[in-house]
């Protein structure tokens, strides 16, 4: 009994200004292509059951193009895998917030011819949770759309051989902290999804493939479709994940495989450049060097380069013609120029002076710290500064969580 879990397709997602020759937003086309590739892979894997953890579309009212694309791809699945049921739990991007709008996902449940046994090939839980029993597979799927946590009794079906929970939402403590206790009410307690009786819990909402417990997983999105792709990239790095994928799990044996999906285009966060004390010319050279070092070139890629400690007057003198060329070649080039920390007057009324940076403060603290005899001070200071540098580089990305969508 093999189950395939994917989530957060975000069809219709648009980003940046670049368009395809047909006038479609390039990123929208990328996301559509990612789904098509995922469908190719699913057809190869031919699972017994497909579960989708929500956010099939990026908006409640997707474009006709996005709907048609989704219809075609689901059609491929329905016809290619005629025995494989597809269960979708609507996500927050799919669910209309007003009663006068219906969820578009229902189209897929009602739009395909029923199978020989009378069942729809695609089953959707949108307004309310559904517990779907598949006697032939011996599996019962509780599909819970994006509803307030605590509003649904998440209990397995005692009569089923295998129990699968498909749930769209934020499990407490899994997503990187972005906010605080005020989010607690919107989060699902871990105990709710890890309780005994579930053979697999397929989660949707978080875009990074993440293990919550051995049998509880976020499949992650099929492309970088969150508002801050750089944060999403960083969170993948922290989680030790490279790119996007889908999860295949054998419910009988518990064996699980994450199937990676090739990215539609490179998303590259280039190493940051320290601009302190450098001239505009030196920075132009550093930028050119960083861009030239991209393996495979930057054509069509999505790039970011962070310049640290660059005063405004230096930034104004950068070679903007060269930068425009980079932007032309890449799908998107984000030059993130960060100014040095401001000079301030001490509150005690003393002479104005430069405020010690965090690096200075750390260096001083580590220099004065009592150490065991066998710990070399220089190595400790260097390690501490490197950690700080890593942390500072990530800090900008962390301000907006990356993988939530």
């Amino acid at each position, binding site marked *: 009994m093999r189950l395939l879990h994917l989530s957060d397709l975000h069809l219709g997602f648009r980003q940046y200004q670049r368009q395809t020759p047909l006038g479609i937003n390039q990123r929208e086309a990328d996301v559509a292509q990612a789904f098509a590739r995922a469908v190719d892979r699913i057809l190869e894997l031919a699972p017994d059951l497909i579960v989708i953890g929500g956010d099939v579309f990026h908006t409640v009212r997707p474009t006709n193009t996005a709907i048609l694309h989704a219809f075609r791809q689901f059609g491929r699945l329905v016809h290619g895998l005629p025995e494989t*049921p597809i269960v979708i739990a609507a996500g927050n991007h799919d669910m209309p917030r007003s009663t*006068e709008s*219906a969820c578009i996902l*229902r189209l897929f*449940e*009602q739009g395909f011819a*029923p*199978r*020989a*046994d*009378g*069942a*729809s090939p695609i*089953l959707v839980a949108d307004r*309310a*949770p*559904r*517990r*779907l*029993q*598949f*006697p*032939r597979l011996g599996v*019962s799927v*509780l599909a819970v759309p994006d*509803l*307030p946590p*605590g*509003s*649904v*009794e*998440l209990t397995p*079906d005692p*009569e089923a051989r295998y129990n699968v929970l498909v749930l769209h939402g934020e499990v407490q403590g899994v997503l990187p902290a972005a906010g605080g206790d005020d989010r607690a*009410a919107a989060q699902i307690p871990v105990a709710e999804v890890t309780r005994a009786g579930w053979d697999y819990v397929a989660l949707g909402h978080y875009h990074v493939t993440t293990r919550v417990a051995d049998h509880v997983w976020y499949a992650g999105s099929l492309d970088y479709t969150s508002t801050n792709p750089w944060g999403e990239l960083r969170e993948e790095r922290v989680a030790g994940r490279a790119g996007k994928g889908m999860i295949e799990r054998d419910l009988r044996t518990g064996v699980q495989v994450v199937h990676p999906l090739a990215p539609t285009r490179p998303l590259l966060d280039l190493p940051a450049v320290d601009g302190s004390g450098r001239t505009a010319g030196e920075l132009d050279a550093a930028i050119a060097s960083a861009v030239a070092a991209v393996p495979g070139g930057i054509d069509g890629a999505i790039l970011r380069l962070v310049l640290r400690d660059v005063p405004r007057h230096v930034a104004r003198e950068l070679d903007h013609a060269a930068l425009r060329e980079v932007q032309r070649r890449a799908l998107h080039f984000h030059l993130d120029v960060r100014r040095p920390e401001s000079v301030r007057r001490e509150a005690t009324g003393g002479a104005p002076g430069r405020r010690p940076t965090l690096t200075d403060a750390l260096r001083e603290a580590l220099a004065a710290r009592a150490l065991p005899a066998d710990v070399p001070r220089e190595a400790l200071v260097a390690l501490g500064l490197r950690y700080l540098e890593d942390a500072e580089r990530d800090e900008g990305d962390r301000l907006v969580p990356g993988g939530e969508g």
Partner: protein
Amino acid sequence: MTASVLGRVVATERRPNTPHEFHFWTALDAPVGVGTIVRVESTRPVNGVLPSVYGVVTEGFGYTDLQTPLHDVLGADGVPGSSASAPTERTEIRLYTAAVLRQVPEEPLQPVPIGTVHLATEADVQAALRMDTYVQGSDARGIPVGAYRSGGTDAAVHLDADFLLGPEAAHLAISGVSGLATKTSAVQWLLASIFTHLPARKGKVAAVCFNVKGPDLCFIDRPATRLDPADRALYDALGVPAEPFAQVRYFAPWHARGTHLATLRTHDALADSVTPLTWGLRETLQYAEVLLSREDIDAKADALIDFIKERVVDQRFEDKLLEGAHEVRAFADLERWFRELLQGMEAANQEQWRTHHIATIRKVRNRLGNISTRCKGLVTDDGTVSDLPFGAFEDRAVYVVDVAQLEEDAQDLVFARIISQLREHLEKRALGVEQVVVFVDELNKYAPSDGADTYVRQMLLDIAERGRYLGLVLFGAQQFRSQVHRRVVGNSGTQLFGRMDADELATPGYQTLAPATKARLATLEKGQLMVRHPHFGQPIFVRFPRPAVLTGREGVEQFPPAEVPTLEMAVTKTLRRLDASITVGQVQDILALAGDDEEAILRARNVTLLKRPDNVLAFFSKQLRKRVAPEVVGGRGPAPLRAPATDDEYG
């Protein structure tokens, strides 16, 4: 003639004495009147014993030696005021007729002898009413019903517990006009007296009172605001503490809206003491005939209802016409069962299902489905049951069931079920007490002498006839005794009468009373009763004290009912009974889970109140979670589309 002699017995050919009646004359100023108990002493022994006869005055006459009224006119020269200056007073007589209460010795039963008549002393009253056999001694079981007062004699009048609560006789019927606070007050007083005086060897006793109108019985656990010294003296004399009932449990169904209880005892200071009364499918279906009219339900429908009761409710039920197994435990389940069955029959083009025709099934579905609407607040769709503590009734406790705000149908259901449950538990000796007094007001409405033979009337007749063996005692009150079924009234061992309506007194049931007694009954003051009891040879007039409890009218003034709360406040107030720290904000947060589903919120509140969990909010919140019913995918044959009509936003 000694000072204690009140009068002398006289007998003439025209007015002879009999073993049951005698006549005596008295001095003009003798303290005697209708209802006075007297003792006759004869100087002629019978079989060597000087007989004593006790009687109660039932009629009085007064006349002079005037031949005609005209003689008096002539004597006064036609001037009424001049009669005071007449040289001599005319001879005048006070002649009384008394009914015999008791003759000592009882045998041989002879006409009342000529002798002297004396006012009855306290001991005489005991002897006259045969109270000496049950008020004193090791088998004392007297229950004070009031005080006999006449001619300066004050004597407690006791009822025999064996004849009031069984097993010798039982039941009590109290009649009187409305608005004089006699019937309800008398029952409250008598219950207090029973609780105080019923000997422990007679077993435990409790009372179930149905509050059928206004706030009558809603404050009987609160002390009276005013109790006159005369009332207190009566309490002292009758040996009953002038206190409200110590143990009272109130039950009331929810208001149809479900936010608050349908009672006038909703003041914040008292609301905690009222327990919701709610029943589910099983409890209701057992008494479905109470709610279903005979015209509606014929033999075919009866058969289907029986089938549902025996084969469907509270068990797993499968049928090829149903999509899956059903476990019908609530009205909502039953509705689903009917819906699926009818859909299945239509899909299979079947008109009969297990011998039941589709029209019968539709009719029964309609009638049963109606019940939870007609009895909203009492009967719950979800099967939540909150009931009287059958099996754990407490000694000397009063259980007040407030049905005043229920529809008539629902009131009938409450009577039928509670009384039947009491009977069933008493039969098994498993109620928690050995005797239960059931007080039903407006008995002429529930057990009328004419009209349709209803389930409730049948049940009251059954109690009246068999209840005394079980310890199930009916205290019924009615304005018009003549309008209550004869078998109910006739089986009441004890009968109390307050002030009566003259028209009512003219009915055949009162023919045995002398005109003077009827006249007195028609003018009885508050706090006075005429008592009939098996031991008393004749009806006796007594006084009883005002109940030491807050009256309904005073209660609503002192504890005005709370305003109708919002849903949030209603839930918060109810949950605070279990955990005082709960805030409205916390409740609002949880209610957000249920959205607009008010019924789900009220259901969750009811279950929480019933289960009384340690963590009230967590439990309440859990109840609001949607429970997802399973759908079998691919269980049926090919279908064109999944129920396209049901989820079409355009309707």
